[in-house]
């Protein structure tokens, strides 16, 4: 078979890549081991969270799948950071993992441009430094104009449960070895990372009622009026399950300490580096000895399954120790383990070898996306998949690159961080990574990105019409606030927007008093109101931030020519030349973010790039 684009892997990166490329009119071959594991959630059955929720809203604003999929199959929804400002509000939802996977599979199957390739991808075939085909382990061969690899944790995956070791990409699935060899053969820099997952418990073996009335489980309720992930969601979302919070105790601590020698993380069996911010139970106990207890959440994995996910309890201790640990938790004395927790080590490709399109520097039209680039999280993977899918389809048709800036989207920050800084540990998105955080909110993700998605061809007529209506409504609401006069406590009459800038004044109360009438609709009412109030109240900050973003964009517009020889620039230290040549920044802005490249070196480079070519030749040392 011959395809425009082949995508290897149908996890969260792969499905977005395939879907985007198909929507853009390419014939797509989606290569996966089995239909059963499409859009699979091998770890936490949840989507979103701080900054991750932002990514999902952005994926949705660009026409991706994840937002719609979780709105359709989520079973409990919560907006995190609600007590803080709208810039850090972030939706999170428990997914029904089976229904989620099914929803995505069906969405892919509705795309006539997508064909499944079931089997194990083996080798990347390259001619003249450009991808030409994908060879399968079974000998089949598929030609393609662009290739997106999204193999997640499968490259030389190795699962650890105590001293048990099992080559596997995920629980029960064999790893990719030939593909790992093929990637390595092109000279990509690779490293080893580790991640882990907690044990799953049987729902019926836990007496929730009693534990809750004893006060050892505290219910973590969902929001009364959930904020959806997708801009297209119109129906109200419903919470259908209950989640519970409990805490570790001294018995857990003593068990971990007493068995630490049998933890592959602590006895040298695992070399890969794990995520610091999502520590295993072993790390929590050993690295934070002062903390008396740690939080654990019990989260159902779906409506029709019995699995309860024990959030915060990931570990790689032997099965019998896991058993004791679970039973040591209050309320779980007789819980039965369906599947033990495990740690998985896997190869990742240092993403500094990628361009801002996620195409590799070494091989033309070869794209890497997702966890194999050193990231963690479904959302980070999906965001990369979307960008790789868009750019693979554009490359296949000879169109120019599509990239997002750091001031435009968290997706832009994600890609930029990966390609300029690389990964030393699994990369997770945080709002603190955004230097223009105030501008990158969940409420304006569509205003920021949907026009770009429309230009690409990812937004259909219906969605575009809805977007335009919403944009107009937003502008009208702001206008209303500027023009409606309201009475202050001292009896003066001022514009509502002026009043809102004063401390203590709230938009909601103005509306309750009937002083202002705004046009805000059902499911996103809270979010829209907050967005409007925020834009009015902190207008000064937003304007300053926008001005700063514009200054940064100027740096981004100063391009470094393709294949530029950094060694020819007089005045750059050997170390700086090394990093620049290795990472190959495309703009002066990217160069400035590479670790080890000093501001002075950026100044030198900037001056050099501005010089006429003649002067360049004269100044050879």
């Amino acid at each position, binding site marked *: 078979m011959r395809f425009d684009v082949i995508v290897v892997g149908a996890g969260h990166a792969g499905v977005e890549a395939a879907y985007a490329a198909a929507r853009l009119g390419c014939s797509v071959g989606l290569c996966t081991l089995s239909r059963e594991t499409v859009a699979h959630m091998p770890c936490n059955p949840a989507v979103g969270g*701080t*900054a991750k929720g932002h990514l999902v809203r952005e994926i949705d604003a660009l026409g991706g799948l994840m937002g719609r999929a979780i709105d359709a199959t989520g079973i409990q929804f919560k907006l*995190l*950071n609600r007590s*803080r*400002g*709208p*810039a*850090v509000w972030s939706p999170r939802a428990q997914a029904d993992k089976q229904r989620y996977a099914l929803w995505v599979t069906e969405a892919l199957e509705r795309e006539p441009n997508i064909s499944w390739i079931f089997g194990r991808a083996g080798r990347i075939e390259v001619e003249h430094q450009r991808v030409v085909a994908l060879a399968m382990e079974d000998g089949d061969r598929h030609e393609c104009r662009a290739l997106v690899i999204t193999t997640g944790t499968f490259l030389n995956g190795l699962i650890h449960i105590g001293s048990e070791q099992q080559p596997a990409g995920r629980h029960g699935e064999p790893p990719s070895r030939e593909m790992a060899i093929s990637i390595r053969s092109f000279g990509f820099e690779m490293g080893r990372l580790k991640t882990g997952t907690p044990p799953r418990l049987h729902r019926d073996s836990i007496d929730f009622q009693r534990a809750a009335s004893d006060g050892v489980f505290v219910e973590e309720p969902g929001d009364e009026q959930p904020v959806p992930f997708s801009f297209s969601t119109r129906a109200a979302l419903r919470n259908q399950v209950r989640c519970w919070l409990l805490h570790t105790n001294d018995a857990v601590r003593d068990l971990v300490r007493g068995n630490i020698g049998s933890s592959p993380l602590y006895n040298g069996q695992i070399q890969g580096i794990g995520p610091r*911010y999502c520590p295993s139970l072993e790390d929590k106990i050993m690295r934070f000895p002062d903390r008396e207890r740690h*939080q654990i959440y019990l989260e159902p994995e779906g409506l029709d399954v019995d699995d309860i996910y024990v959030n915060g309890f990931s570990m790689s201790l032997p099965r019998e120790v896991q058993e004791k640990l679970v039973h040591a938790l209050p309320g779980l004395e007789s819980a039965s383990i369906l599947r033990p927790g495990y740690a998985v080590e896997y190869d990742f490709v240092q993403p500094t070898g990628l361009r801002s399109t996620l195409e590799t520097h070494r091989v033309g039209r070869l794209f890497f996306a997702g966890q194999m680039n050193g990231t963690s999280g479904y959302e980070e993977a999906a965001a990369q998949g979307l960008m790789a899918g868009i750019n693979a389809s554009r490359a296949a048709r000879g169109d120019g690159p599509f990239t997002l800036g750091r001031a435009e989207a968290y997706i832009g920050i994600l890609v930029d961080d990966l390609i300029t800084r690389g990964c030393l540990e699994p990369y997770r998105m*945080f*709002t*603190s990574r955004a*230097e223009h*955080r*105030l501008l990158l909110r969940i409420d304006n993700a569509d205003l920021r990105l949907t026009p770009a998605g429309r230009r690409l061809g990812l937004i259909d007529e219906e969605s575009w019409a809805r977007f335009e209506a919403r944009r107009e409504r937003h502008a009208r609401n702001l206008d209303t606030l500027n023009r409606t006069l309201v009475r202050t406590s001292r009896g003066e009459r001022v514009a509502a927007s002026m009043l809102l800038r004063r*401390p*203590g004044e709230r938009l909601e109360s103005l509306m309750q008093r009937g002083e202002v009438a705004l046009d805000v609709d059902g499911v996103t009412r809270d979010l829209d109101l907050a967005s409007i109030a925020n834009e009015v109240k*902190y207008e000064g*900050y937003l304007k*300053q*931030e926008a001005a700063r973003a514009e200054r940064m964009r100027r740096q981004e517009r100063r391009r470094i020519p393709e294949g530029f020889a950094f060694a020819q*620039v*007089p*005045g*750059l*230290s050997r170390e700086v030349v090394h990093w620049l040549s290795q990472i190959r920044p495309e703009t002066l802005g990217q160069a400035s973010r590479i670790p080890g490249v*000093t*501001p*002075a*070196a950026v*100044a*030198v480079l*900037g*001056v*050099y790039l501005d010089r006429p070519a003649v002067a360049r030749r004269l*100044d050879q*040392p």
Partner: protein
Amino acid sequence: MFSTEDSIVAIATPPGRGGIGVVRISGASSLRIAAGILDHPEPLRPRHATYTRIRRNGAGPSDEVIATYFPGPRSYTGEFVVEISAHGSPVVLRGILDRAVAAGARLAEPGEFTLRAFLNGKRDLVQAEAVADLIDAATPLQARVAFDQLEGTLTAQIGEIDRQLFDLIARLEASLDFPDEGYHFVEPAEIVRRIGCVVQTLERLLASAPRGRLIREGATVVVAGRPNVGKSSIFNRLVGAERAIVTDVAGTTRDLIAERVDVEGLAVTMVDTAGCREAGDRVEREGVMRAARAREVADVLLVIIDGSVPLMSEDERLLAETAARPRVVVVNKVDLPPARDTNPSGSHGEPDTAHPTTLVRVSARTGAGFEHLRDAIVAGLTGRESLRDPAMISNARHIALLEQARASLVAARASSEAGEAPEEILLADLQAARARFDEVVGTRTSEDVLRHIFERFCIGK
């Protein structure tokens, strides 16, 4: 100028003849260039003074010299540096320079050696600026402030403030990014307290700014008064030279006469002016107008009154006009018998409490009272602050940036006290403050700023 790969050369001592003249070469090939100049077969020993000769080249000059080799990175620029000390003849030095250029060195631009030290991470921006200040220092006090900054006292202070701020930011960021960890990374009251601490430290630093600027930039003292009260005589005494022409003809001084003097460590520009009066010829009228403008820019005015005659209407007008300005009223000619009503403080007292009038009695002829006058000038300039306390900060660029940082921090404190603004707004202010600190020490500086700073250096530094 922003390149550091080639080797640069310059005469590092002042132009003209001198006992010793130094040529400095910096760059990767400085040793090879020096080998082409020196008649010295062995390699130069690092950090040793080597007595040798300049290699004779046709009819070119020769000389005996001391060459010192500083291998990088332990050198002024962080590069390989060779300094050649020759006899201070412009011809000899020019000859060495030409030979160095012939051997591949490039003539250095002003400040380029220090710029390289900055680019190579040997000095931060504050220190690089301090080098220029130190070279420009005209008074011991200026030199001391510059040297303190060169030593890194200001850098260390800013670093300490920045560390406090960074810790707070990290905690606030953590609470935004880990909302369900179940504990506060920092309590609201603690936020207010911590920002308060940072503001306090910053304000302490900024408190010395007016003094620091005064020391670094100096001040202007303008001598004013009606004709023939002895302005020029007092001016001459203060500058220690017969700089202004003194006659008993009223209106002798017509243009402004300025001279820079060291008054108790302050670099003071003394300005003598034409006497205030109506009419005169066109030249004098112009001079009177210039005098009026000079009075407006003065940091301190010396209003001179002739104590031997009664106050005249011009005296009274000037006293009234300058009452709101920082001034010293100087009663001159105390060696002569006093007229009865020459105490001007009675009639033209203290309408402005911010600048209480100081009255000093002097005799320009005998020199009596000048000690008091100098003290009064210094007091007028410093607001009676002691100059013995070190001034941490003196550069207008630093002061402006730190003022901006302070404004951001004060806004952050206000919004956290009110408990209204969300944390990300608070963080926007805190981050803005940090960005200013980065600009001061140069970890975040645009090319333009760098160019501007290094432009004011002299060649060879």
